[in-house]
């Protein structure tokens, strides 16, 4: 039985659609209930519905054998897992954004509000810029509007939230997408099953791209 950590929400739905077309379906997932575990003994898979930011933790701790998680979370928490495939789903960009008309004062440390503390630190260390980090958990776009920070480091998809809050993108520095990860022990002891799933996913992703 292969345990798959699926992120709750839109990405998880997209990934499940993909997996169900290549032989890993589990019809009970559509039942309207509050269950978090769905099993299909016929094709030997068990889906675990998990908070997106927790997928890597489940996989790293062997509670799930494989999982789907965004590259942003992988770069931020650096779990010790195998990263086997880029699913090309959930595409967005990691950006630096500020208020419209913002002018940087290079004479003092830059105040950066973000959910992604490690990613922000690494980005600015590479530029040798002195920064103060303010860690927030959501609605990061508010910070520069209220003067809590000069800029924000956050993921941007369509850019609507940025535009509607009178912000502008200063820099796009990292393309983000959903990745297929595996626990190292599971990869070694259940190698056939995981390799087969990876190969099928790779083919399906390539097929989608060529459409």
């Amino acid at each position: 039985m292969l345990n798959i950590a699926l992120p709750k929400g839109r990405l998880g739905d997209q990934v499940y659609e993909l997996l169900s077309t290549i032989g890993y379906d589990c019809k009970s997932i559509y039942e309207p209930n509050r269950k978090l575990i769905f099993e299909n003994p016929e094709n030997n898979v068990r889906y675990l519905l998990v908070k997106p930011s927790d997928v890597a933790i489940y996989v790293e701790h062997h509670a799930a054998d494989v999982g789907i998680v965004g590259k942003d979370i992988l770069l931020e928490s650096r779990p010790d897992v195998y990263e086997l495939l880029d699913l090309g789903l959930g595409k967005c960009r990691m950006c630096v954004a500020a208020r419209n008309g913002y002018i940087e004062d290079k004479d003092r440390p830059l105040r950066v509000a973000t959910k992604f503390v490690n990613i922000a630190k690494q980005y600015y260390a590479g530029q040798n810029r002195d920064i103060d980090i303010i860690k927030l958990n959501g609605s990061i776009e508010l910070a520069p509007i209220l003067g809590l920070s000069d800029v924000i480091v956050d993921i941007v998809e369509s850019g609507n939230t940025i535009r509607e809050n009178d912000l502008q993108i200063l820099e796009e520095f990292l393309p983000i997408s959903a990745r297929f990860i595996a626990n190292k022990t599971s990869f070694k002891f259940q190698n056939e099953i995981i390799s087969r799933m990876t190969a099928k996913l790779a083919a399906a992703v390539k097929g989608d791209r060529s459409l």
Partner: protein
Amino acid sequence: MRLQTGTLRPEELATLKLRGVYEQYGYKKYRMGRFEEYSLYAKNQSFLASENIITFTDLDGKLLALKPDVTLSIIKNSKATRGTREKLYYIENVYRESKESHTYKEISQMGLEVMGDVDLYSVIEVLTLAERSLAQLSDHYLLEVSNMDFVTGLMEPMALNDDQKQIILDLIRAKNAFELRSEARRAGLSQRECDDLASLPTLYGKFPDTLKKAKRLVRNRTMERAVEDLEQIYHVMKSVGLAKKLQLDFSLLNDIDYYNGIIFQGYLEQLPRNVLAGGQYDGMVKKLGKDCGGIGFAIYLSEMSRVPLTPGDFDVEALVLYDADADLKELTAQIQALTKQGLRVRAERSVPPQLRAERIYRWEDGALKEAASAQNGEALAAGGKETC
């Protein structure tokens, strides 16, 4: 007195048995104190898993640390040279950061080191002991082996700066073939070099097949020698029946500044991470100013606590209930007689809550009488079948 090994956890039993095995191969026990000079770790931070170390100032003003590692101390104190060999094993507690709880943890670690003249036989002996150690912990294990010289040999002629090299090594470790290819292309490597690097994550499996695939990737003498060593090791391990759980995986990489040649990790099916890690670390030895080789491994015994044990049916075989009237001399004698039969006995004035007993004895008319006995293996518990 017979040792009651039934209640020992697998890691406790393992330390008992493995001590014997290591001593049979001529390893001597190394004992070290809890404290070590902080400067030893400060100068060699990248050898350690984490830079967070518990430090304190001793009464004489020296800055000390609660040791996060044993290998560095063994190397520092070693008197081995190129012509001699020192073989040591240890069972020590180390103090490390737990990444999950962001607190310090005490970790029980068992391991061994060979310092001095390290040749192919030493490597095979250490691998043999690593396998036997894993087998002692569980039937469901595998020992993953690699030769760093294969990968460093492949990357040596490539025009990469240190940062690029680091990124590529991390991608190989994560088996991230697709990003490897794009990073290699971005660094300006040739098509063939990109293909070679991208094939490393797929170079794993049973020795014979993987070696065959690896041979096609050999581009220079260093890589050729690496494959030859691996082949020889495999043939010897196979001849002594230790090749069944052996696997080759070229994506296994340790820090290239410290490790060279053969490195390995041991996995148990039930545990999320490797329970054993080791390799040849000539680079580390040289850095500490000794002119010789070194190879060893460590077993993270604390990881074993994650393996659930099937709980026994009973906590004790005999629960003895006595009251204030009991003849103490007689009671003591009879309880001692029960223990001499090998039973676990508990004497109480009343039935303790949550105790699972196989039999209950009562002190009645000057003697112990069996009052109740477990049926069908179902333990007698407080508030259960027995009424006081």
